[in-house]
């Protein structure tokens, strides 16, 4: 029997972002199939697991840290992951998610849940996790090993990074694959 190579344990996480980065991940198309021969997707919005597992090799974190839940999850990811990647501009810079930083949190919630009738209404406030005063990029909450910018990052970039990591190579993107935006 052929020797079974240990598969890489890959997780993806969706914090304060629009899920566009995950869409871009899906846009890897057939490359995904190749990737999944080398890696197991152990956690993320694309799979069923309810709890972030232990001993994860690579985690792509989409989105900025905007509330206490994000912060707790980020800390949990850090303790259980070897390589944490800030995945997309929101995680790297705060990006659009952080545009609320210029507005006091109370004004913000007022505007969203009281002054206009949001689909879930004022009662949503009871179940919403507490918002941080300011949205922060992931690396201000936990140590980040790699930055993969883009809004969303082009599938090419994602492929280049994941391929290098899966192969155990250093990640060295050319300048035109490192731009924000």
């Amino acid at each position: 029997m052929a020797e079974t190579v240990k598969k890489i344990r890959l997780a993806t996480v969706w914090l304060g972002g629009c899920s566009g980065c995950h869409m871009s991940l899906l846009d890897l198309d057939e490359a995904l199939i190749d990737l999944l021969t080398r890696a197991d997707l152990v956690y993320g919005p694309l799979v069923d697991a309810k709890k972030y597992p232990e001993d994860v090799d690579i985690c792509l974190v989409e989105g900025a840290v905007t509330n206490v839940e994000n912060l707790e999850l980020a800390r949990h990811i850090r303790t259980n992951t070897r390589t944490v990647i800030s995945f997309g501009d929101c995680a790297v810079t705060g990006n659009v998610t952080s545009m609320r930083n210029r507005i006091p949190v109370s004004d913000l919630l007022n505007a969203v849940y009281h002054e206009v009738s949001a689909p879930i209404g004022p009662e949503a406030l009871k179940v919403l996790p507490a918002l941080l005063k300011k949205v922060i990029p992931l690396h201000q909450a936990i140590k980040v090993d790699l930055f993969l910018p883009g809004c969303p990052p082009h599938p090419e970039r994602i492929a280049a990074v994941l391929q290098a990591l899966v192969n155990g190579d250093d990640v060295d993107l050319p300048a035109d694959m490192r731009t924000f935006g």
Partner: protein
Amino acid sequence: MSVITLTINGELVSARSGQSLLEAIRDQGISLPTLCYLDGLSTRGGCRLCLVEISGQARLQPACTTTAGEGMVVVTHNDKINRYRKMILELTFAERNHTCAVCVSNEHCELQTLAAELGMDHVRYDYLNPQLGIDISHEKYGVDHNRCILCLRCVRVCDEVEGAHTWDVRHRGIASRVITDLNRPWGESESCTECGKCVEVCPTGALFDKGMSVGEMKKKTNFLRRILDGREKNQWNR
């Protein structure tokens, strides 16, 4: 025209006498980052990205405001300078709200390109998230202070090339803002000639043509050389 020789990164090279060190370095095909510098405008030495090491000088010097000198020994890149350049870019990004993803100049922005080129992949300082406005009172152009890096190319081109001096700066330090006509809305400016030079020389999406959407604003700064050379050769006065 006399020629001088100097050493750049260990190579003996020649330059024109009176040439700026920046030009001399770039003439050697070495890429030296700049943001406030623009060929054709007066030099300013404010962005601090073109700092280089010159033997015999205790401090790093901006290449743009330094005249190349006979026998100078210059180092344009080393670990320290590279690190400092990155840190300076980080500070520039932290200062205002450069949300590249939703910028008219996305993918055509000098700041964005430089960050990628210099490997500035994240900002370790607190984003300041200032409350800044956008002035779209002008019929043709707009200014988005969120994206302004205070390079003052607009101020200089308006003063030195167009001769209108519509642009200037108010306040100081972190509170500095570019203003039109003693801080009146751009649309009410009496001195603005609507020439659009400021928009073209702006390195970011701070100045833009109205109606542009994300990533649509492409700027051309090469017009400046053409105008200035033409002026010098008296091409416009036939």
